[in-house]
Every structure is written in C-alpha cells, then in structure tokens.
C-alpha cells in the first residue's frame, strides 16, 4: 500500500523536514513532528500488531497514552525498548520499529489459530483447564506465557545512561493542556515554585488539535504564548516528555522524563531517561480524559479507532484516518470530526448516532450543509475486513436500543471513528486515594473527595468544555499556590475567550446489539489490550463473580500496563447490567501506578555497577588491594579474606597465615571494629545496664570483655571495652555493629534514662586499628614503641593481658590494647586514621625478622574457632542467650541489666536449650558444612529430628584436623557423646561432642 493519507496542508508537522524510518524492516517516510503512529497511518499502514490472547490483527486505536493495540518494539539490540505505544513515539531519522507477538510475521501469524478456538478459551480458561495434574502447572505456565504475549526484553546490557533526581515544589501541575497551562500561569505569577509536567513533546494538549480560534489567535498559538510566559518565570520548571506515573503518600509523585527517546541516541553525558521524585506541597491534576470505544460486533479491526484520535491525527498531524470514514457515536463529541474531515476534503461515509434525537451540537447543525448523512437511532452491527476494515453493517435500533430492528445496510469504509463518551483521567487522583463519584450525565467517574493536597481541573475533573477548562485550571492553580503560601500582588488573567458549549447527552448502549447474541460469532471487545470481550464479562457474572475486584482479576479486564484507560467504564457498565445494579453500586477498581510503564533503566538510574552499593574502605585498603588480597563482604566493608601468594589456594594461604600467628606473629587490619567513646560521671553505670557483667570496679587502664543482651535476653553484641579514665570508656563492637549499638545506647539514654549523665560518640572511623598477634607480638611492638612499658624485662605485670596503654608506635601517637581474639599474645593498636597506612607499613618492615605476615578474616575466624571464641552473627542468630553460650561467669548476679529478667524465664534455663559445643568429626579431614543439621542417631529415612546445627566449621592447621562449633540441644550434658550430621552427598558424618575450646583451653598462651 503506497497511497498517502497525508492531507495537502495543515497540522503541526514540519513538511520541509522528511524523516525516514522503518517498520518491520520496510522503509517509510514521515515528517518532523510525527509520531510513529501518525507516520504509519500517513503511509497507509493499518495492521500494526497482533492482540494479546487471540492474536487478532490490530491497528492504531488512539493518539495517546491510552493506546492498547499499537505496542511495538523500538530500536535494535541492547537499545531496544519493547511494549512502546506507537502513539507516543516521536519520529526520528532512522527509527526502526517492529511489531510484536506474532510468528512468523505480522500478516501471517500462526498464533491466530487461537482465534479459531476462541470458544474454548473463555475468561479464566487457564484456571479451569490447567488445573490437573497440579505439578504440571509450571510446564503449562511457560507455554501460556509464550503464547500470550508482550514484547521481549533485550538480553544485552543497556548502553545508555539513566538518571534519577529529587525535586521539590509548591505546586506540581500534571498535564499541560488548557487547564494545566492556565493553572501554571496562575500559580507561577504568585512566585510559587511550580513544576509543569506533560507527557507530550509539546505543551498544549488538546489545544494542539483544535481548529477553532481563541481570541483571534489559533489555540496552538495561545499555548505557545503561555509556554513562553511560563519560561520567563524563574521559579517555574517546564518538563515536556514527562509522564507523571505515580501518586504516592504525602504528595510524593513520580515522573518519568524521556530526555532523549526522541533522538537516535542520547547526547554524550546526558541520560536517555530521568526519573523525578517530586515532593509537592500542592498538586493540580489536569490530566485530561480518555475517549471510550463502543462495544459493538468486531469492533477491533484495523482501521477502527477513537473519533477524538482521528481528529487529532487530522488536525495535528495532517493525516486522514482513512479514505472513507464512518463515524459511530453515542454523544456529540464526534461531530466536529465530521466537519474537520469534510473541510480537509475527506470522505465521510455517514455519521451513525445511537441516539434517536438530533444532536444540538453546533457541528451537528452543519451536517446537512456538508451533505453528510446522519443515521439517528442506528448502530454499527458488524464489520468486515481481515487485515484492514472494508465495510460496516449498519442497522436501525428498536426504541429500547436493546435489539437491532432489521434493514441492514452495508456501508463501504476503511475507517470507523467511534466515540463511546469520555472518561476523565482520574488515574492519579485514584492513586492518591481520592474517592471517585459517578456522574450520570457524563456517564463517567469524576474525582470526589480528595485525601491529599490535590485538586483536579478541566477534563480530568469532568469539565469538557474549553471555557471551563481555562477557568477551572486558573482557579485551581491560584488556590493551590495560596494554600502553599503564595498570592499574586497584581493578578493577571491571560485567559482566552472560548465559546461555551453544553455537553449533550450520552446514550450508553453496552454492548451495541447485533444480529447474533453476544458470545456467538463476532466478538465485542471491551479491553483491547487484554483481549477481554463483553461475553467474558457476562460469563464471569453468570459464574458468580459479583465483586468488581474479582471480575477484574478473573477476566483480566483493566489489568496489565493499560490499567483500563479505555475499558474500565464499559466493563463496569456490562457488569452492572448483568448484576442488575447501577454503575456506582458496582464500584470502580483502584487504578494502580504506573500510569504508563516505566523502564527498569529509569528506576535503577545510576545505582548500578560500581555505584550499586557503597564499598567502605579502611585507611589500609589500597595496600590490601596492591597485595592481591582476596576480599570478603562484611557489611559494606570489603575486608581482606586472605592474602594468596602466587599459586596458593585459599586453604594453603589460610594455613600459612594461621601458623604464622601461632608460631611467630601476624598483623590484621581491624579498623572495621566498631568503637564508641563513652564519657560522663554515669558512664560506668550505663555499661552496667548494657552489659551482663560488672563494670563499676574495673580499674582505669584495664579492659574487660562484655556481652550485651536485648530485652528478650538474646545476645545483641559483644566486645572488649576499656576504661580510659574514671569517667571515660572506649567500647568496641563487632565490625559493622557500631551504629546499631550506638542507636541502642542512645535509645535507652534518651527515652528511659534521661537523668543518666553519660554521652556516647561513635569514633569507629577516627581510628585505624591493627591487631598484632603471635608469640613474637611483644618483640615486634618493642621494636617500634616508645613511652610504653611492654614488660619485656619485668614480665606481664607492666602491661598485663586486658589492659590499655598510651604512647607512641612507629613515631605515631597510639593507644595500645592488650587483648586477644586469637588466643595468642596480642595487641590492638589504635592510631588516627590518617596514620593507619604508615603504621601498617612500619609493622611489616619491623616484623621482617620475625617473618611477620598480614592475615585476613578467614585466618582470624579459624584462630578464634580453635579457641572456641564465639562470633556474633555466626554462633548467635537472635535466639541465643549468653547462658546458651556457656557464659554464666560473665552474667552478674549482683546487679540488674538489660535482658536479665528474660534470662530467668523458665524457657531460658531449660536444660535442653541449644547450647554451644565443639564437634570433632570421626574423619579428621572431614570439614562439616556450616548450617548442617545434627541428629542423635545414625540417620535413616527422613523425617529426622534435628538436635541442633553447625555454626562454624574449619580445617584447623594448628591441630591438623577439622573442628566445628555447634549449637546442640542440651549440648553441655552430652560431652563425649557421638552425634551424626546427615550429608547431602555421602550419607552422614559421625562426630564427637567436645568442649568448644579446642586449643590451649587454659589460656596459657594469652599471657605469653
């Protein structure tokens, strides 16, 4: 088909700028200012898609966001964007678009066989058909998903940039048509911060498709003047190509801006799309309305479209919907199309009006003059044409309008422009939880009581008359600004005079009668995107679906990306008729965000790849990286896991590091350890409440290990706290837990103990911490330390285990703690973070003669497990008490503390609670998997009674065998007993229950 449907002149396209594009590989030409849809129509392309379920041939249906049919893939390869509405795609040179949901081609689609068997595919057919056998559902589902379809997502990473940003404003105006522009002018002149967002490339909305004059100027010129005026206001932000897709709590709205989708590729450095997260003090919704289709027999053939869309294509894009257009309506709004078509030299086959009475619309008065036949009280009872419309059967209706009265007339036409009335676009209002009210005159839902600070104006408020759109918009913008605290000193009302027209009556006949009953023969489509027919809704009602919410889910009407933009009211009308209820008594379903689909790219923005999550770095991180360390995720830290040398495996590296600590000395970057500085006269009292053990009598310069519990008695955290002064402590928490523990302390101090004179400051990151561990730790430190008596000559008393000293290490002011998590003689050195790397390097240099080795977290885990030391988060999981861990000695009986009462509950003292034990496997090389379950007997067939689980498990280089820590029911009473650990691959492992301290249980080495 090569004939052009382009008019000779007119429209807002630039005829001096032709643009080449392809559809399904075939080359076409359009003009700058075209959408893909208008350009396809201009080229006579009618068939653009196959429907969702029945694979019926479909054409362009609308001219905007409500398009249910013309969903295409735009672009190739990684840039491809599936399921894009052709009506919203701006044409650019080289644009390549493709039809979807067909095989092998759009014209010959094998899936269309579904249409032949459609009687076997009623609403809910898969619930009925694919029930048995139950386990087969997943197999069925894959096939159903393939047959029923949408486009396919590209499988290569998107090369383009997507971005997100926040914005704040006093007034957000949704929609830049007559009402929205008026609202923006009113709000803008008060000095309020205004954001005006419109989904189209150009502001003006319906004004861009109007032929009438406004105060001497064309409607589009008035819009352009308004935009120019708004652009000059410093606090007004204009967002074209921006769809407000979601309205959330507290006037938080989401906007998807298509920054560069109208270009072949985004300009370097700028995003393709940008997501706006807007907080608006006030919102004005001026989102317009959607025309409804008429539900008549075979109302979905390519060439059948909405009348308003046909008029928009004609006036805005200079494209005739067909060479001979039949207009079919139940209201006045389609008559101006007949006038405009005639003026453009088009052929109007007839106007078929369901209403028997003559329309009082000024355009209707001109039908005789234009020699356009008007058939009042008539209906389109059927259509013909497989891949494009060829003719319509028109019949008179009986007086009630519920049956055709014979006298069928075949009218040749290649387009039907239909109007079933207009539904205000209440989607965002409904998302904002506003109540909808049914308007009998308009036969539509209009906004009722608002819940949030929002106003509706113009067509989305049920005001279809242009004059009222201007006034309502202006008043809404002014009132919104006033509520946000802004008024204009010298108000200007630059509103044009528009003729006022009273909307005529709408005659709802739904479905439109045909020769055969609904459900037999031709289909009466209600929801075009989801292929839901009038018969489906009738069936749902007959099967007992009385609730509109159930009917929606059962038939899928109003679901999916379309959210019922054109179908919602017709579906409700059909259901109401079936249930013999009025539409408001059936109720409307909620409209859900997004209004139109939002790309994953825009939602993800730049939170991808290296910016997906923060990566916390210690002051020595660069050294670890340069040393080729393998890293482990600990919270948001990347901690050195181990430092492999050349061809070492993980096991070899860990073994080397563990043995270095046991035999000589190793150093560990422990900067991630949480540190909280606690000061005040009541600091010791605070610790007494927080920890389970006693703190008041801890001497200055001494350290103590403590466990803290939640109110329920479960272990929250543990660590060593040092007394730096009479009223000054430094608490250590586990890595990544400092913020949580700090919040815990603050909560108690602020809400329960406000009189307690103690204050806490997190100082984790102020210090770099290096642990020096091993029998040579003291000698290594002695080589670098000044001003600290390490007790080289005098023995332990000078600087005993669990004490702290201040001095200088490697020339750096330092605080040195003698504490140990490895069971060896060990020091932790704190210096200011800026000196961390210097200290680390100095220790490595000075330690060369001892063969000092940096060791990672895995070696640390092995070393502490050999000693039976617990690790919070590994041996504890929020259900473990200090008693379960065998820490009775750390639980004070002399004082109260958080969680103490819980620990005395009967359940906490039961002898069969899970308790910490060690496990030694029968086979010394058998390393149990962490998390494995423990059973009492040699396992037979399941079910087995789990007695506990393995919490930590390693191969111990020190002991030359595997070790494991476990929580075992009544574990401490079972020392010496044999238990079994069922293995996925090889039966089970036998193990002996032992004390968790595998190595140096008396702690001799600590005191070096």
């Amino acid at each position: 088909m090569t004939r052009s449907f382009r008019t000779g002149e007119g429209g807002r396209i630039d005829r001096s700028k032709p643009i080449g594009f392809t559809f399904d590989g075939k080359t076409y030409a359009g003009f700058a200012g075209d959408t893909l849809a208008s350009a396809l129509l201009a080229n006579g392309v009618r068939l653009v898609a196959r429907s969702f379920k029945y694979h019926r041939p479909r054409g362009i249906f609308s001219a905007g966001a409500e398009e249910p049919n013309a969903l295409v893939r735009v672009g190739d390869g990684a840039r491809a964007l599936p399921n894009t509405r052709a009506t919203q795609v701006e044409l650019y040179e080289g644009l390549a678009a493709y039809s979807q949901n067909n095989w092998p081609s759009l014209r010959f689609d094998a899936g269309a066989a579904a249409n032949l068997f459609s009687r076997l595919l009623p609403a809910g057919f898969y619930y009925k058909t694919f029930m048995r056998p139950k386990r087969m559902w997943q197999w069925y589902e894959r096939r159903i998903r393939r047959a029923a379809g949408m486009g396919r997502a590209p499988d290569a990473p998107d090369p383009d940039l997507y971005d997100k940003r926040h914005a704040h404003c006093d007034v957000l105006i949704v929609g830049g048509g007559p009402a929205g522009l008026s609202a923006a002018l009113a709000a803008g002149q008060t000095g309020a911060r205004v954001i005006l967002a419109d989904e189209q490339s150009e502001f003006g909305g319906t004004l861009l498709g109007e032929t009438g004059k406004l105060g001497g100027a064309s409607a589009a010129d008035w819009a352009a003047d308004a935009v120019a005026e708004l652009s000059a206001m410093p606090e007004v932000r204009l967002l074209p190509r921006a769809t407000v897709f979601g309205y959330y709590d507290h006037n938080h709205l989401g906007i998807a801006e298509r920054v560069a989708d109208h270009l072949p590729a985004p300009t370097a450095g700028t995003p393709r799309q940008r997501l706006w997260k807007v907080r608006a003090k006030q919102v004005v919704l001026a989102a317009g309305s959607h025309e409804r289709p008429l539900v008549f027999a075979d109302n979905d053939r390519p060439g059948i479209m909405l009348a308003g869309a046909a008029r928009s294509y004609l006036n805005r894009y200079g494209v005739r919907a067909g060479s001979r257009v039949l207009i079919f309506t139940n209201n006045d709004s389609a008559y101006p199309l007949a006038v405009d078509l005639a003026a453009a030299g088009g052929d109007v086959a007839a106007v078929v009006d369901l209403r028997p009475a003559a329309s009082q619309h000024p355009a209707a008065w001109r039908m005789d003059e234009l020699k356009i036949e008007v058939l009042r009280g008539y209906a389109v009872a059927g259509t013909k044409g497989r891949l494009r419309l060829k003719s319509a059967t028109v019949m008179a209706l009986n007086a009630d309008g519920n049956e055709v009265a014979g006298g069928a007339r075949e009218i040749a036409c290649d387009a039907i422009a239909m109007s079933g009335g207009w539904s205000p676009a209440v989607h965002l209002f409904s998302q904002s939880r506003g109540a909808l009210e049914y308007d009998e005159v308009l036969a539509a839902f209009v906004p009722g009581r608002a819940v949030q600070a929002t106003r509706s104006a113009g067509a989305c408020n049920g005001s279809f008359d242009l004059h009222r759109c201007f006034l309502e918009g202006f008043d809404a913008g002014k009132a919104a600004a006033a509520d946000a605290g802004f008024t204009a000193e010298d108000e200007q009302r630059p509103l044009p005079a528009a003729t006022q027209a009273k909307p005529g009556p709408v005659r709802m006949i739904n479905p439109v009668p045909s020769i055969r009953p609904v459900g037999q023969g031709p289909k009466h489509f209600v929801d075009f995107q989801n292929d839901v027919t009038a018969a489906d809704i009738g069936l749902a009602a007959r099967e007992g679906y009385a609730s509109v919410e159930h009917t929606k889910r059962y038939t899928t009407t109003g679901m999916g990306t379309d959210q019922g933009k054109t179908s919602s009211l017709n579906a409700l009308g059909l259901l109401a008729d079936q249930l013999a209820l009025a539409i408001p008594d059936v109720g409307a379903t909620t409209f859900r965000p997004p209004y139109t689909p939002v790309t994953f790219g825009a939602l993800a923005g730049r939170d991808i790849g290296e910016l997906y999550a923060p990566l916390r770095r210690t002051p020595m991180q660069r050294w670890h990286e340069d040393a080729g360390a393998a890293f482990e995720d600990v919270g948001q830290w990347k901690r050195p896991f181990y430092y492999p040398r050349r061809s070492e495996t993980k096991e070899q590296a860990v073994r080397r590091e563990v043995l270095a600590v046991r035999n000589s000395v190793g150093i560990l970057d422990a900067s991630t350890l949480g540190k909280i500085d606690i000061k005040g006269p009541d600091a010791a009292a605070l610790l007494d409440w927080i920890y389970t053990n006693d703190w008041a009598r801890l001497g200055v310069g001494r350290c103590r290990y403590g466990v803290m519990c939640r109110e329920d008695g479960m272990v929250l955290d543990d660590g060593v706290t040092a007394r730096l002064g009479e009223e000054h402590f430094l608490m250590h928490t586990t890595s990544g837990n400092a913020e949580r523990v700090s919040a815990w302390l603050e909560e108690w101090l602020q809400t329960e103990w406000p009189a307690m004179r103690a204050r806490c400051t997190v100082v984790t990151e102020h210090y770099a911490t290096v642990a020096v561990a091993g029998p040579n730790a003291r000698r290594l430190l002695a080589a670098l330390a000044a001003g600290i008596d390490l007790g080289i000559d005098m023995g332990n008393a000078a600087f005993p285990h669990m004490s702290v000293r201040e001095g200088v290490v490697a020339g750096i002011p330092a605080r040195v703690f003698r504490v140990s998590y490895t069971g060896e003689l060990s020091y932790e050195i704190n210096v200011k973070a800026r000196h961390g790397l210097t200290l680390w390097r100095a220790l490595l240099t000075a330690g060369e003669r001892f063969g000092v080795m940096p060791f990672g977290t895995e070696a640390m885990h092995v070393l502490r497990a050999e000693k039976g030391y617990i690790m919070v988060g590994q041996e504890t999981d929020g259900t473990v008490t200090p008693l379960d861990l065998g820490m009775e000695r750390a639980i004070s009986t002399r004082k109260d503390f958080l969680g103490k009462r819980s620990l005395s509950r009967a359940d906490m003292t039961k002898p069969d609670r899970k308790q910490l034990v060690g496990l030694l496997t029968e086979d010394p090389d058998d390393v149990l998997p962490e998390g494995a379950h423990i059973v009492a007997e040699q396992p037979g067939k399941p079910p087995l009674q789990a007695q506990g689980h393995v919490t930590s498990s390693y191969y111990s280089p020190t002991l030359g065998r595997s070790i494991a820590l476990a929580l075992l029911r009544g574990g401490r009473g079972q020392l010496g007993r044999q238990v079994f650990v069922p293995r996925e691959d090889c039966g089970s492992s036998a193990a002996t229950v032992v004390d968790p301290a595998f190595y140096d249980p008396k702690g001799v080495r600590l005191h070096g």
Partner: protein
Amino acid sequence: MADGLPAQGALAHRRLAACAVEETRDAGVRLTEMPFRVCINMRAQATPEVRTILSQHAGCGLPVQPMESARRGTLGALWLGPEEWLLVSGSDDLRDRLVTAFRGHFVTVTDVSDAYCIVRLAGPAARDVLAKGCGLDTHDSVFPPGKVARSLLAKAEVTLHRTAADVFEIYVARSYADYLWRWLEDAGAEYGVAVVEAA
C-alpha cells in the same frame, strides 16, 4: 601536618592532585577534598554558661536552633542534633582547649577529625548534583547558606553544610569517601566536573 608525620586523607589513593585543574570556567561543579580539618563532636546542654565558655575559649557561638550553624573566623559550629554539635577548626589544639575550659561541666568533647572526609561541592550545578542523591530541599527559601542537615546522599550518610550560595561542604564517614567521590563525579558528569585542590 602539625605533628610532622606522613598522613593520608581518605581520598589519598585517588591521587586527586594529579587530576586537579586551575581553569574551571566550563565546569558546572567543582569538587575539592578538604583534608585534615579538626572536627570535634561536642555534646552538652546549651546553657548560657556553656555558651559563654565556648565563645570565650573558642570564639564562636553555639547555634541552638535545629539545622543552624555559627561561624567565627576559621571556627564553625554545626548543629547536629539536640545537645550535639560538630565544631570544625583549623587549629589542632581545639580539643585540649575545650577539655580544659569545660572541666567540671558535664560537657563531652571528642576528637572525630579522622572519622570524616569533607568534600566541598561548589558551582552553579551544585544543587542539581545534590538533588540526584539527596531528598532534602536545598532551595534558598528552605536551606539558605549557613544551614546544616544530616541526610543521605546517594547511599552514604552525610552532614550537609551550605556555606555559600553555590557551595556545600559534605561531611561523610571516611570509609564512604571513595564511594561518595565516585558518585559525585558521576552525578556531576552531565554538568562538567572540575577537581580543584584545597586552598
């Protein structure tokens, strides 16, 4: 440095000096690491006595209104929360002077200088860059120069201090500095980023 020891700022590994430029006319934003500023966390009840002592010994008032800051010479006081401030200064002995001055009062001062990395974000697009990662409204009517707020910038907790019309100082935990710097460079790319050395 005052103590003459080699010291690494949080962004030392990025070798920013090598990327620094003099000419910034085309840059929408200028990024500067402000290393080794003295930061003191102070917690106290802002009694008239405490405020007098502070202004006598540090020369700076204590802002008592939420989100306010005070500045006198090189010393700044940033309101962080009820009874909590961040005192920032160029002088190393600030902590010791305060400890002495507040002896006998229940006022805690804690050196947290190295816990932070301070990044100065300046330029005509500074607010746009912040808007990409921070939900705060930085409009002049809400957040004029002098305001302080703690918030999230991208996925890092920050203290945001607007020091001039188009200058923001961002206090971020040292370990997050690398992430935030990379994020800022990425967010600013659209407007042009110039790395500038601290004066």
